[in-house]
């Protein structure tokens, strides 16, 4: 198992290097020029072209793409992600500051998605072709189909504006308001993020469970006189979890995509909003840092999926590691 993880990590490093090249090139192809952005054409008086050129040289943007990449990756491997073009603060510092709120939002969203999606999907499979099943299927399709910004606006309208139950912006009230206050701020954005992911989870869980419910060994389990609860809870569930754990883990990074939008709408000071601001400001170092963080998360989730898969499936655990 350890050898397997080490080998997977080694492969991940290669993949990460490839991603970094691709991202770097893509960013350069992005329209707009950070140096231009730094010299405000309305407030700047004097020779603007010269100022822009000076900026460009200061930032090394006049160098070839290759030189820029080598410089950046050289610093990256030493843990230095550079400095923000717009605020001049270290990228690592900015990201760390934004990481907490995003982790809180995404973590809660994930827990909601799991707690709603998996049980509902399993229940739908067990009550196949009944009202419960149809209801779950329709609702999961709705959750998948309606864009989260729309759900977010409805949520703000209903729970924030009309009912006045929940705050609709920020991570806590101005000046801070303790634990209850931050939970109240968290509820709406996390629920919307989580329910969007619960949609696909319902479908995966239902499919995985249906697959297992038709298997012979469940009849064997019943033939031993086991109670239905044990047949489902022990025999069926464990087998259904095997395919499920992979899709669940692989889907986790899609939360980032949701977070970018949700954070924007709810003025949540997380990495998603940071990324969007960085795009507007052509703040390449921040953007690179953000996208690399997403890439690491994707690779990590894949690794977790494979390891978890091996842990719960003895056929893989005991046959040695796979590549």
């Amino acid at each position, binding site marked *: 198992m350890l050898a397997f993880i080490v080998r997977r990590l080694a492969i991940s490093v290669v993949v990460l290097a490839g991603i970094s090249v691709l991202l770097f090139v893509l960013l350069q192809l992005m329209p707009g020029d950070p140096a231009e952005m730094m010299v405000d054409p309305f407030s700047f008086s004097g020779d603007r072209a010269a100022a822009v050129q000076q900026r460009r040289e200061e930032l090394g943007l006049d160098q070839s793409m290759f030189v820029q990449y080598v410089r950046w990756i050289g610093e990256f491997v030493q843990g230095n992600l550079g400095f923000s073009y717009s605020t001049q603060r270290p990228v690592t510092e900015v990201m760390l500051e934004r990481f907490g709120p995003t982790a809180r939002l995404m973590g809660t969203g994930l827990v909601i998605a799991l707690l709603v999606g998996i049980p509902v999907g399993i229940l739908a499979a067990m009550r196949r072709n009944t009202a419960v099943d149809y209801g779950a299927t329709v609702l999961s399709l709705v959750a998948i189909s309606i864009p989260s910004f729309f759900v977010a606006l409805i949520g703000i309208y209903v729970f924030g504006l009309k009912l006045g139950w929940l705050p609709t912006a920020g991570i806590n009230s101005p000046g801070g308001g303790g634990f209850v206050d931050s939970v109240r701020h968290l509820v709406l954005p996390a629920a919307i993020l989580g329910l969007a992911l619960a949609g696909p989870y319902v479908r995966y869980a239902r499919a995985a469970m249906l697959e297992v419910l038709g298997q012979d060994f469940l009849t064997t389990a019943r033939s031993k*006189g086991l109670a239905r609860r044990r047949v489902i809870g022990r025999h069926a569930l464990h087998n259904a979890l095997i395919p499920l754990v992979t899709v669940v883990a692989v889907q986790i990074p899609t939360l980032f995509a949701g977070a970018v939008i949700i954070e924007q709408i709810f003025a949540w000071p997380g990495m998603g909003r940071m990324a969007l601001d960085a795009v507007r400001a052509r703040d390449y170092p921040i953007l690179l840092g953000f996208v690399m963080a997403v890439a690491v998360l994707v690779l990590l989730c894949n690794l977790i999926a494979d390891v978890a898969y091996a842990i719960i499936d003895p056929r893989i655990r005991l046959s040695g590691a796979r590549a």
Partner: protein
Amino acid sequence: MSEPLLSIENLVTEFRVEGGTVPAVNGAGYQVMPGETVGVVGESGSGKSVTVASVLGLLPSSGRVVSGTARFAGRDLLAMRERELEQVRGRDIGLVFQDPMTALNPVMTIGEQIAESLRRHASISRRAAATKVAELLAEVGIPSPKERARQYPHQFSGGMRQRAMIAMAMANRPRLIIADEPTTALDVTIQAQILDLLRRVQREHDAALVMITHDLGVIAEMTERVVVMYAGRVVETADVDSIFHHPRHPYTRGLLRSLPRLGERRDELPAIGGQPPDPRRLPDGCAFRVRCDLSGGRAECGFQPALSEVAAGHVSACHFHGELAEEGVA
């Protein structure tokens, strides 16, 4: 004669399909005496497995028992609630399934799967259950049983899995073992070993055994009495000698004729012509008449033949069983 251990009568089971229902069992019934070995033989779809599943409440959700009775040691299984039936399954009646590849849970150890059956029906500690599991595995001929109990099904060969399956069925010393095609999925060399094992544990535990199979070789070797099923009905029942030497139903005779024999060269084995009937469109009257080489289109075949006793302990559902008696050995 003593009371039968299992007595199934007039069982009708149907399956829900798109646009209606399909009968799988049409009034079948047979009896099993304590300690007796009964073979149930018939083509695929003749209802031999569905009969057992109906009686034990193991039908898939699309299946439904319409009518009939199934008495086990005097109690009607079909009238029992699920809770009561759970007490019978695995304790009084043990099941061995066809394919040990799919009939064992791939993510639980062999030991766990046997132990949960023990612990379901008797309040014993984990430790005691583990000891018992090792004993059972040793009994069915699995070497180093303690280590093997900690292994998963994929670490067992097909024959070993079927041995484990038998250990599981035997765990609570049931009075009846039902083996549904227990050797069909195994290599020929392993088949004989598994049959030997079944016979041995049956004898040692003094249990009755129902062998469901389409293999007449297994029937001849293992059983005392034979139930022949066709299209969801029992068409003939007799002791194994009578079935093989004096069959009184044209279907049974057809099955026997299609067996190859040692010391006899034939270019072509006589097969029963035609296909098993589509259960959605069973012919009126005798379900076998369209394939029957005895009927000759006689009018009687348009009526469902009743099971009638043709000799002591020998019943047949054919209007013309008398004609077969004159023919003698097929």
